[in-house]
């Protein structure tokens, strides 16, 4: 669908005077326009998303990274429905409590969850795992690599927050935005925003979260804690835990303030657009969307990891005692099992067991470890006990649920 060029014209001055308030001003259309985004004259662009689909928002953002003019600077603001967004080079089995995601999806009330189900998303940028919901606004700035600076646009957001009467915010040494709160002893510092970056040959992308009024704050830490943590040793990138807090600002207020700061940095805005779920009708956006949703991306992009029920040379951490007499150790690359060793805990071989049956199996496609162990030749009760335990470790309730 082509949109008339009318849209890509400079904003007229009355429009600029209105500061493009997200709730006051609406552009003519909510369709994503490839022509406008890629038009060389549109060197400063601002987008507001009306979609709350994390896959869609990340896919539009990625498309903007690919097609906007090389010398342009692009601001996008979006809010996602509840989701865990983890980094390009992270391990979801290690970063996320998949069982909890399944429980929330299947029986929210008994999970004490009052929001929509949580989607699991691997993003294309680096960094750690974060939680998004309706009380978190994401900002994204795409700019030429020669102007890239990890703090530049976090500072822009801090200026916006200060303008909204939050003087106690700052960018810390990890490029996160934090809020200092006076207390009796040392001031307490809370993270309110985290950032991640994607750098390509022609363009740099910085996107970040900002916790404004999330109703789910108390759940975040439990969602980002895996039961497999004590057994799994992963290459790639770990997340750094920090106490978080809402900054108690309205979403629209925040968006307007960020737009204002962006405008004061970059001057005339040549194109302002909105997009919604119809952006998926753009072929390249749909392809990016499908890629983000594919199992080979969500699970198969996982860096090499080992999972072992007992200390190994590579991962000598002591392990809690298990309720069954087995030592199990697996090595997976791209989420596919390359080695699997199952022995009795005294090191003796297990009768009739062929652990090579696991080789080549994708961890996310194992629906029930008890069945797989049993197929490999492990006897009845032992396969049930160890299988149930492994199901919990690898979140099969969740992987089975999202397999369709």
């Amino acid at each position, binding site marked *: 669908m082509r949109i008339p060029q009318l849209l890509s014209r400079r904003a007229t001055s009355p429009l600029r005077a209105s500061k493009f308030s997200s709730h006051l001003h609406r552009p003519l259309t909510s369709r994503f326009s490839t022509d406008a985004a890629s038009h060389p004259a549109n060197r400063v662009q601002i987008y507001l998303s009306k979609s709350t689909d994390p896959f869609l928002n990340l896919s539009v953002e990625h498309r903007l990274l690919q097609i906007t003019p090389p010398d342009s600077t692009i601001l996008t603001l979006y809010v996602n429905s509840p989701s865990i967004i983890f*980094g*390009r*080079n992270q391990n979801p089995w290690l970063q996320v409590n998949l069982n909890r995601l399944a429980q929330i999806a299947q029986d929210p009330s008994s999970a004490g969850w009052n929001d929509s189900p949580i989607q699991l998303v691997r993003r*294309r*940028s*680096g*960094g*750690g795992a974060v939680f998004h919901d309706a009380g978190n606004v994401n900002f994204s700035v795409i700019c030429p690599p*020669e*102007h*890239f*600076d*990890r*703090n530049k646009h976090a500072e822009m957001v801090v200026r916006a927050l200060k303008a909204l009467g939050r003087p106690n915010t700052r960018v810390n040494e990890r*490029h996160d935005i934090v809020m200092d709160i006076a207390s009796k002893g040392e001031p307490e510092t809370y993270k309110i925003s985290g*950032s*991640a*970056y*994607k*750098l*390509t*040959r022609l363009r740099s992308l910085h996107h970040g979260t900002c916790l404004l009024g999330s109703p789910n704050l108390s759940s975040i830490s439990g969602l980002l804690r895996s039961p497999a943590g004590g057994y799994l040793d992963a*290459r*790639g*990138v770990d997340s750094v835990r920090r106490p978080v807090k809402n900054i108690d600002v309205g979403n629209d207020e925040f968006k307007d303030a960020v737009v204002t700061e962006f405008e004061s940095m970059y001057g005339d805005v040549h194109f302002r657009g909105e997009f919604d779920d119809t952006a998926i009708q753009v072929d390249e956006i749909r392809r990016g969307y499908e890629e983000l949703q594919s199992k080979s991306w969500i699970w198969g992009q996982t*860096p*090499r990891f080992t999972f072992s029920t007992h200390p190994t040379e590579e991962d000598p951490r002591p392990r809690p005692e298990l309720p069954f007499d087995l030592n199990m150790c697996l090595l997976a690359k791209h989420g596919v099992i390359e080695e699997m060793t199952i022995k009795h805990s005294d090191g003796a071989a297990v009768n009739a067991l062929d652990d090579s049956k696991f080789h080549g199996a994708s961890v996310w496609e194992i629906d029930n470890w008890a069945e797989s162990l049993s197929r490999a030749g492990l006897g009845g009760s032992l396969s049930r006990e160890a299988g149930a335990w492994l199901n919990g470790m690898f979140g099969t309730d969740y992987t089975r649920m999202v397999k369709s």
Partner: protein
Amino acid sequence: MASIACSLRAARPVAMRLAPRAAPMVRLAMPVRSFSSSRMSLARKYTKDHEWIDLSADRKTGVIGISEYAAEQLGDVVYVELPPAGDWTDAGDSIGAVESVKSASDINAPVRCKVTHANTLLEEKPATINQVPEDDSAGGGWIVKVEVDEEGAKQFDELMDAAAYKEFIAE
């Protein structure tokens, strides 16, 4: 070596990430072993995107990595995504990625090439890229070994030699 590299990086203010015009890096003056190899001065070339490529005498194979300057700018590399062997990649297209300081950065093919080997040492020790990014030997921070076709060899000739690259990053 590692600790020296780290302290140098730490001593560098973040803002310098943005300052390609900054004075030449101290590290360039450090004794890096492969500088003495004649192979490098004869057949190592650099891209504006800070990759280097060594081309063999018969111009059919090459080794690719990122420059010391790029490694310095990236900060501590925590993960290297290596490409699978096998497919032809055009110049400028991605042949891998590195992650450092929350950033996923593409590594681009300097010339048209086909990956034959990836440096699996980097999976285990990604920091090797910070320590010896321009070392193409075993234990070095090279990224891939490639096959190069005629087109790739022609593209190689267009790239910058070490002297031109040094000038480029000092600009």
